[in-house]
């Protein structure tokens, strides 16, 4: 067994660990940020069905603070699902017709993970019946993904308005994905059963690498780089999206006295202000500043 094969086994595990630890680290970092002020935007999908439909809220009622808060998990799941699987907002509102291309790329990525998952299951359970479905998922992923990445790159490079906002790193991100999908297509062309890919995954799982075609190794090398890079790049927007929607745009829950949110609030108004404007006392806390209604105006900074 060659050093390269062993490297690829270890690299596979390493990339998986970095991905899991990195994404978890980011999720913890996001969730431990200070409790922000309420900043919701309606419609909020966990409202009761009728209100959700026209964008209403519990604040349309009288004495709402004495009533239980609405909470429809189904509403949130449907809204999130339509966003994740159909890119609803891009379809409805994007003025550059990015939707079909972006949808293709996103489904390419979803199916890429599905393909790897099926390879893992197939390697562990050694079920031949899975190989056909694995093959279909793989090639559909690669074709959709390659089409999506390529067309998005072309769109971004040729439309002057999109081009202005597209930095080299954004092309790099698309290029990395494109390379994964293209090497996937090549490996399929060389072997439509993805036997080489299955051998690599099986070898990695059981630490018994076997020789596989170079293009398969390249395909998994690029996928590993993608996993390592993802938590530290804009690829992680799926996680940010969760926090943006659930802890900002849809977070309409008012707090009760003595609740964890209230205690957090008490802690936070005790933070030092830091701001140095003429109407601010930077060394005092937020609460102390709030209680001082009329500070001596410091000389305005010119």
């Amino acid at each position, binding site marked *: 067994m060659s050093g390269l094969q062993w490297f690829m086994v270890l690299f596979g595990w390493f990339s998986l660990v970095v991905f899991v630890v990195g994404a978890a680290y980011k999720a913890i970092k996001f969730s431990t*940020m200070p*409790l*922000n*002020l*309420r*900043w*919701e*935007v*309606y419609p909020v999908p966990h*409202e009761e069905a009728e209100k959700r439909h*026209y*964008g*209403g*809220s519990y*604040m349309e*009622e*009288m*004495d*709402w*603070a*004495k009533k239980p808060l609405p909470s429809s998990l189904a509403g949130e799941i449907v809204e999130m699902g339509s966003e994740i699987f159909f890119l609803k*907002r*891009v379809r409805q*509102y*994007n*003025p*550059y017709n990015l939707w079909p291309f*972006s949808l293709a790329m996103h489904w390419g990525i979803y199916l890429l993970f599905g393909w790897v998952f099926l390879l893992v299951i197939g390697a562990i359970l050694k079920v031949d019946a899975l190989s056909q479905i694995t093959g279909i998922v793989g090639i559909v992923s690669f074709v959709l993904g390659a089409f999506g990445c390529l067309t998005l790159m072309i769109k971004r490079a040729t439309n*002057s*308005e999109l081009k*202005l*906002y597209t930095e*080299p*790193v*954004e092309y790099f991100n698309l290029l990395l994905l494109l390379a994964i999908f293209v090497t996937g297509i090549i490996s399929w062309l060389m072997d439509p059963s993805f036997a080489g890919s299955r051998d690599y995954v099986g070898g990695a799982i059981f630490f018994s690498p076997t020789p596989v075609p170079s293009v398969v190794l390249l395909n998994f090398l690029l996928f590993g780089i993608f996993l390592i890079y993802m938590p530290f790049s*804009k690829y992680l*927007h799926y996680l*940010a*999206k969760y*926090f*943006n*929607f659930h802890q*900002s745009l849809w977070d309409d829950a*008012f*707090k009760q*006295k003595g609740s964890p*949110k*209230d205690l957090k*609030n008490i802690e936070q*108004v005790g933070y030092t*202000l830091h*701001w*140095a*404007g003429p*109407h601010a006392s930077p060394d005092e806390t*937020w609460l102390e*500043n*709030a209680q001082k*209604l009329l500070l001596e*105006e410091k000389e305005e900074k010119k």
Partner: protein
Amino acid sequence: MKKQVNFRDIARLTDEPLIKLEVEDLIELPVEEPPMEPPKEKWLESYDFSLDGHSPFDRLKPKTQEEKERLVFGFMSGLEKLFNREANWTFLKIFKLSMDYCVKCQTCSEACHTYVASGRQEIYRPTYRSEILRKLYKRYFTPSGKLLKSFVGADVEVNYKTVWRLLELAYRCNVCRRCALYCPVGVDNALIAREIRKIFSQELGIAPVELLRKGSRQHLAKGSSTGMTPAACKATIEFLEEDIEERTGRKIKFPIDKKGADILLIQNAGEFLAWPDNPAAFAILFDAAGINYTLSSEMCGYDAVNYGVWFDDIEATRVGLKHLTIAKELGVKKIVVGECGHAHKAMCVLLDRVLPGDFALPLLPRESCLPLFWDIVKSGRVKLDPNRNNFPTVLHDSCNVVRLMGIVKPQRNVLKAICAQPYREMNPHGPMNYCCGGGSGFAIMNSLNFPQFRKKVTERMKVKQILEAFKDVLDPSIDKMVVAPCSNCKGALRDALAHYGLWENHRILYSGLVELIVNAMVDIPPFLKWEWEE
């Protein structure tokens, strides 16, 4: 003509504006309008118009290099504080995630009435100002920006012009947050505009004079952002009592500082001065419905506004604390906010997580006046005749009340019950409505030539919507009403209807909602005045 602008232009060391606005580039309106005027010659020497030939800042341009450097240093110091968990706990999470995870798909662009109405000028795109801030932050504060520079987009240089133009850009957004509804990632570009405003206000004390010095500072010093003192407030109320008696024959005493009342009604003090029929109508309706309420004559207690909501968390907290303390001391069961959109959001939503403990909403409820209106109307406690309101009406949705609080139905239910003709909806409406163009302080910002920008660009989409809603009844022989239950929206509508001649040529007037309810009361004379009041 629409000009190509790129990001590095923001740092151009010239007084030449990045773009020149021309009426022919803006979206078309089926009305004649005054031409776009350049800034007055005498202003050019003293003030900076280098963004788009407009400015709300009557602040003298820095003359020396030292003055410029002080501004840049203050800006950079403030920018760093936006990412500090103590200095910016109020919005750090939303801000940081919006800064780091925009995927630049531009799906939000068409949501913005300013961008669209301007003829899609690049600098007004919701992502343009965010991108400038992002590039500056990356370049000066992140290892990737310092190392990889333009590869990651860290390619805008900070200088006096960059800072000034960014300040101006922060005041080209109404913070209506329609763009946040469009974003597939939940990025909030309007919040970023507000965060930029915070840098300037909280770190440097720079904000439009109407918002800070004559706004929240004056509110806290004199009792109202209008400058109205408690004594002046009482005198105004006495005048209103006399006016009500004269017009309706009813002797109504406004309850003031009544301890233990069910409701503390807090209204925008601008109503007392600009639209006194609105607080008068509240008094007539509440009296007729037997509502146990009170007004406050305490400093700040008679003015619901909280301008800090638009630009400064410190000021927002101060004014909010004052409002809630007054309610606590009066021992009222709840606060009801009058027809003022941003005061609704401040009181019922934002203050929820600013002030802890006894100020929690279940202990001191804060509610909109709109559900209460509907409760009064549907209860039949006040006899109403819809035929009193027999004219076409169109409803304008205040962003703060509708998109940002989800109060959509009560005002519609009221209109259905009190108008003889079905009320009209704007297109789009409800949470997808367009801002009136006066949001986030624009309605009261009148320095230099900023009003021209407001009338021509930010209010333009609303004028288009109104004309479309009334397209079959534009004949000036038919009186028509735009119903806007929000003071700032009314300010913007007054501005726009006058500028485009909609009252003069089409008899389109505007009003709050409570005036229409009182106009439908059968046992008093009609309340609405079909006349234009400046």
